């Protein structure tokens, strides 16, 4: 009888222990394989993300190169042709009493001057040589001055001069292009007549805030039209924002619209931080 009781006890203890060990093994194998799968998927995901960023970077670079090429062609080829045309025009001698032709000559001269100016403007805007020579703050300031030149728009800047261009300067070019595109949009779509840009450089992270009094975008609307709009502007902005690992935020307060671009502290190798 005692032997039978002991056998039951033994069976019970061994049974529970064996079942528990088996279950614990299955559970550990399960957790281990799931962890491995998760790690593999995460590495796959980050690889995809970095490939995507490389593609965006390549497209942004080629866009910038193309801008420079067009700017140089315009400046060197078209600008030179127009200057030559003006020189030829100046050599034409008209009789003083031929007032009709005198007027046409004058008008032609003015149009060539205007064309040369426009070509110079477009070429400078595409080439961003101020950005490369004097840095981001000066380039933004110059662009804002150009916007207000001869118009009713009031544009002011309060930029933090503690920020100096970092090497490589591609980030600055992207920031400049984002601000350029945003300002063009504000003028074109929001119909603002007061624009103010501020920047703050703190703990190696840079924040720009554009404030305007037009009819601006909310964050939701931006997210919506970014995917639905056929225009390249917002897509370009978003690509550059992704490339810089920055944040773009739209908000409204007291009838004023705010656009904030927050750039993280760059990594030690100069690449944008996360």
């Amino acid at each position, binding site marked *: 009888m005692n032997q039978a009781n002991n056998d*039951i006890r033994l069976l019970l203890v061994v049974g529970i222990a064996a079942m528990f060990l088996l279950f614990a093994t299955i559970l550990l194998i399960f957790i281990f394989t799931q962890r491995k799968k998760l790690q593999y998927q995460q590495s796959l995901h980050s690889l995809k993300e970095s490939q995507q960023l490389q593609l965006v970077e390549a497209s942004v670079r080629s866009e910038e190169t193309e801008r420079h090429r067009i700017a140089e062609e315009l400046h060197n080829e078209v600008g030179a042709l127009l200057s030559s045309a003006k020189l030829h025009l100046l050599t034409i001698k008209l009789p003083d009493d031929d007032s009709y032709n005198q007027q046409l000559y004058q008008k032609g001269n003015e149009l060539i001057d205007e064309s040369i100016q426009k070509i110079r403007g477009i070429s400078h805007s595409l080439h961003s040589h101020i950005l490369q020579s004097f840095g981001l703050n000066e380039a933004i300031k110059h662009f804002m001055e150009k916007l207000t030149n001869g118009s009713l728009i009031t544009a002011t800047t309060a930029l933090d001069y503690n920020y100096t261009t970092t090497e490589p300067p591609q980030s600055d070019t992207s920031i400049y292009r984002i601000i350029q595109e945003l300002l063009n949009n504000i003028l074109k779509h929001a119909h603002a007549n007061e624009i103010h840009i501020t920047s703050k450089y703190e703990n190696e992270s840079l924040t720009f805030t554009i404030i305007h009094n037009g009819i601006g975008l909310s964050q939701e609307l931006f997210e919506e039209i970014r995917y639905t709009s056929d225009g390249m502007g917002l897509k370009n902005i978003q690509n550059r924002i992704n490339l810089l690992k920055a944040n773009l935020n739209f908000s409204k307060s007291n009838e004023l619209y705010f656009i904030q671009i927050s750039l993280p502290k760059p990594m030690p190798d100069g690449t944008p931080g996360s």
Partner: protein
Amino acid sequence: MQQWVQLILDWSEVWALLIPIIIYKKQPVLYQPVVSYLWCALFINLTIDFVWKFRMVIPSVYNSNNYLYNVHSIIRFSLFTLFFIQLNQPFLVWIKKIVPILFLIFFVINFGWYEQFFNYSVFSSRLLAVEAFFLLFYVLQYYLFKINENVEVNIFTPDFWITTGLGIYMVINFFIFLLYNELSTRLQTFAISLWNVHNISYIIFNLFIAKSLHESSKQ
């Protein structure tokens, strides 16, 4: 001190259920069977413990709580079967559908010919062991399915906690349930003290459910 510990363990089938009941907030449909189980189990276990503690004052016809363990077993099996079917895992689908039918067939045969459902002296070891076996099958097929599935973000999902808690509880108790009738006739003191192991595993099971429902309400 030992008496206090024993008292806490004796009532653990009731207070352990209160942990997930207090913690859980509104749950998705998927976890409704588990929530229903908690309330049913609370009611049944409360009755079981009251009957046991006041068995001296209750008329002898009503002072057995053994059939309540059988009721608890059937409710637990039904609700957790519903939970695993609702998980909608396209794996061993037809076997999962057959399991409740097999359990029903077993129930009819066992209590029709071999055992009494309202047995005064013992609960049905066979019923509880078969229930544990089938629920362990559900637990294992859950892990097998998950191993083949792609992990999205997190391994430790609410359904993982419920399944693992149930798995631990059933693994520990399978042999206890299977041999309990035998033990209660041969080694009664050992059987009573062995029920403490069951109670501890029940606390662990409820802690896992609490963790699951907490995670689920956060999502």
